[in-house]
């Protein structure tokens, strides 16, 4: 069965969803985080940096986005 470009794009998207879930909500947290409590709900732990870093430009990072070519990430 031939795999189309669209298949690959979809696979990458799905992998990204799982990655982002983990990167932004999991992992060890250090520094600058708040613990909030909201009425009737247990203490909820908020990672401020993770929230702030969810908006994008590549420029600040000095990264240029490679064109979608299907090449493996190197």
């Amino acid at each position: 069965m031939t795999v189309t470009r669209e298949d690959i794009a979809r696979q990458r998207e799905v992998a990204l969803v799982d990655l982002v879930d983990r990167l932004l909500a999991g992992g060890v947290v250090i520094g600058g985080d708040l613990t909030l409590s909201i009425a009737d709900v247990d203490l909820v732990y908020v990672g401020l940096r993770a929230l702030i870093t969810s908006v994008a430009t590549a420029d600040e990072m000095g990264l240029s986005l490679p064109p979608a070519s299907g090449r493996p990430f190197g």
Partner: protein
Amino acid sequence: MDSPADKLLNAPLDLDPFARDLRRLDDALTGRVRADPENVERGLAQLVLTIIELLRQIMERQAIRRVEAGGLDEATVERLGSTLMALESRMEELKQAFGIEDEELNLDLGPLGRLL
């Protein structure tokens, strides 16, 4: 070096539903959400409806647990059920009126996960 697609160990044929989250994430990441008046109003409606929906779901879950636990008389069960049923259908009307889909009501709070 392997590619992101290699992360899929077992996958169904149709991946669209599993990638749905990404559309909203991508919008946020590329700053595609604009602040024109129509969007702002819609955003507010989305927020308000999400909160109402959250409360509705909490109440419904509580009611279901109480029914499951037993000890409620028939009249109470009926009253609870009718009210919740009416609430659910009212929510549907509101969503349709604002042209908002179920998925949009599920606000993404980052590390907190989805609201609903």
